[in-house]
């Protein structure tokens, strides 16, 4: 390619993007994580469209979520309170993750480590609350994947499938974060650079974002 072609008039977006060596000026791990997340987005999109579809086609009435997902602390039941707390925790964990990334680039190993551990702890408590919610639904309300006392059997099917799939993502994320955190502590990335923290962070933010959609589609709709 001549110099003119590089710097000249036809330096369009396409030329820029298709320049030699690499399309994005990021480490390959980050590019790969982005591509994976787009692919994963398709999985969740299929789950959610599938959910909307069966909700429209099922013959029985759809249960009232706000009543099922209510929790009472002594007094009157408060609709969706547990989910609100869970959502709040997950969003907070995105904040701590962002801090970890920031300290990673400043090569502050100690703070990076602790913020990652905090993020993982938030994640773990999210999974814990989800387990609590599941057991309440199963044991007290009698909701099963194949049926429930409130209406369309698909309600339980979709609920357990989608929140379960998301819960697995969170669990995997907790393990991933802890692994990276301990490697950070040991100084494993001193030479390689701390992009890995950001890459793990991308995954984590994605899992949070997906939750917002699940929350909106499942609990509010």
């Amino acid at each position, binding site marked *: 390619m001549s110099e003119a072609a590089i710097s000249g008039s036809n330096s369009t977006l396409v030329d820029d993007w298709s320049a030699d060596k*690499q399309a994005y000026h990021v480490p390959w791990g980050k590019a*790969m994580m982005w591509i994976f997340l787009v692919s994963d987005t398709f999985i969740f999109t299929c*789950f959610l469209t599938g959910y909307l579809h069966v909700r429209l086609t099922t013959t029985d009435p759809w249960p009232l979520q706000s009543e099922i997902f209510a929790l009472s602390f002594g007094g009157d039941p408060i609709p969706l309170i547990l989910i609100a707390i869970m959502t709040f925790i997950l969003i907070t964990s995105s904040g701590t993750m962002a801090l970890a990334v920031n300290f990673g680039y400043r090569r502050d190993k100690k703070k990076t480590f602790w913020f990652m551990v905090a993020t993982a702890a938030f994640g773990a408590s999210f999974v814990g609350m989800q387990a609590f919610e599941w057991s309440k639904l199963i044991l007290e309300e009698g909701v099963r994947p194949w049926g429930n006392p409130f209406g369309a059997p698909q309600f339980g099917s979709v609920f357990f499938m989608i929140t379960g799939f998301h819960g697995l993502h969170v669990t995997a994320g907790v393990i991933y974060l802890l692994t990276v955190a301990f490697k950070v502590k040991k100084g494993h990335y001193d030479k390689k650079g701390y992009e890995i923290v950001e890459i793990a962070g991308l995954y984590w933010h994605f899992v949070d974002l997906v939750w917002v959609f699940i929350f909106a589609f499942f609990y509010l709709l």
Partner: protein
Amino acid sequence: MAYVPLADQDSEMEMHHPHSWVTKYVWSQDHKVIAIQYGGIAIAVGVVALILSLLMRMQLGFPETFDLIDPSSYYQSVTMHGMIMVVYMLTALLLGGFGNYLIPLMCGARDMVFPFLNMLSVWVYALSVIILMSSFFVSGGPTGAGWTLYPPQTTMAGTPGHDMGIVLMLLSLAVFIVAFTMGGLNYVTTVLQYRCRGLTMMRLPLTVWGIFIATILGLFAFPALLVSAIMMLFDILLGTSFFMPAVIESGTPLDHNGGSPILFQHLFWFFGHPEVYIVALPAFGLVSDVLSTHARKNIFGYRMMVWAIIAIGGLSFVVWAHHMYVSGMHPYFGFFFATTTLIIAVPTALKVYNWVLTLWEGDIRLNAPMYFAIGFIFTFIHGGLTGLFLGNVVIDLPLSDTYFVVAHFHMVMGVSPVLVIFAALYHWYPKVTGRMFHEGMAKAHFWITFLGTYAIYLPMHYLGFLGVPRRYYAMGSTDFIPESAQDLNAAITIAALIVGAAQILFFINIFWSLRNGKPSGPNPWGSASLEWQTPDTPPKHGNWGDELPTVYRWAYDYSVPGAHEDFIPQNVPESEEPTADEQHFDPDHDASKADA
């Protein structure tokens, strides 16, 4: 730390070095070994699928002659044949096999970006194949639901393999998707981030473009299959009703209600149609490079070819419901999907014209790979034209689920990619092994396969017009199918058996030539693209010796006037060109010619 592009990094940084035999050939992280592992497994299951198809043909051609096949095992053969051919053979061979071998070499890289993940990919793929094959040995046998696995019949008692078989099939598909994702992330990222100096995207050989876009399609389409597999597994194992409406099975209502079988069809075909192009696009790429090399001409309209691949890839996500015209959907829906389907024909036809124009006035060398590549143009045009008909709702309604459809998809996505695969296997065989194959045997293989293909599938179009239904164990006696259809069926079967047997020539050839083939030298076809310029043949671990190559031109500088060998490899700088010629064509210099 300043960020250094991979292509500029010290070669020692990311390489692992195998020491023992096991790390070299079994748990290998070398993309070339992984490619051969992928290819070997894929070809082996392909042979299983081929044998199943011959069993079916024997039943259809000579009913009541072989006790081996009863209606159940016929359905199971249809299903396993279709699924294996499409997913476990073609997808794995084209992306896992050719993708792994060629992407790093054609990109001037030492390996994939993440070799460990790449190694996991092939072994997880092996696991998925083992799960699939194990369904032959469980009680009830493999599923007989047809490769489309439509519920509710898939899980109902009348269908063979409705208990264990289908569970293993779905499980195996899920595992396959995991394997594909691990490999696919590598292929895409390697193409984007790991190209050597000077190798812009618009200088990549079309092979890389085809595999690159096909992998992206796979990463976006397989999720739909994964989700439908998970949902169906829930229906079977947990008794949910995602896809199961209220059904009465031999008098007793099943424990399902309110599910939507149509949802499965949508999810399946949202995967299924792009899957056609996951198979076709790599084949398009490979065949472009084979045609151009053996015609000693640059590929006609390189930029157009790239954009056509991208356009086809994008459009392939909005045509899926043309497989569902008979599902009772709204006519406006059909209208929409017929329109998009016909639009996809435009970039596809463009590619065909460009292949033909690449041959036009070329200095064609009729080597065996070229035979197969030209054969592909025939079969692809043929299958493509019948596709245009089937894309129209009114024509598809009577032809749906007849042998016309069987003939169509075998021409377009069965035979065509297989011919390209043979072309590519013969074409790159010298690079992989350092030896030439036996030319005469390869040509005999071509003629029997190519002519046999027509003997098999041309009559099937006619059977389809007669209304012979697809997926039937036997025709029985019907008014509308004349007796003579049976003679045709017998003839088809004989042709199929001959074609099947002829594949032995291929295996003899590649194994015999491993030892006895003439040494091929590094670049027997005089090819300009990067993979033929490696310091060693077959390329060693790390591919490029001490220094990564630098690229100065596109991959198609053939028949350059004045060049001493009639072609200029990609890594030859302009200063070493024989004449500072104006003829030499680089799309970065001169876009007007490419689009002309």
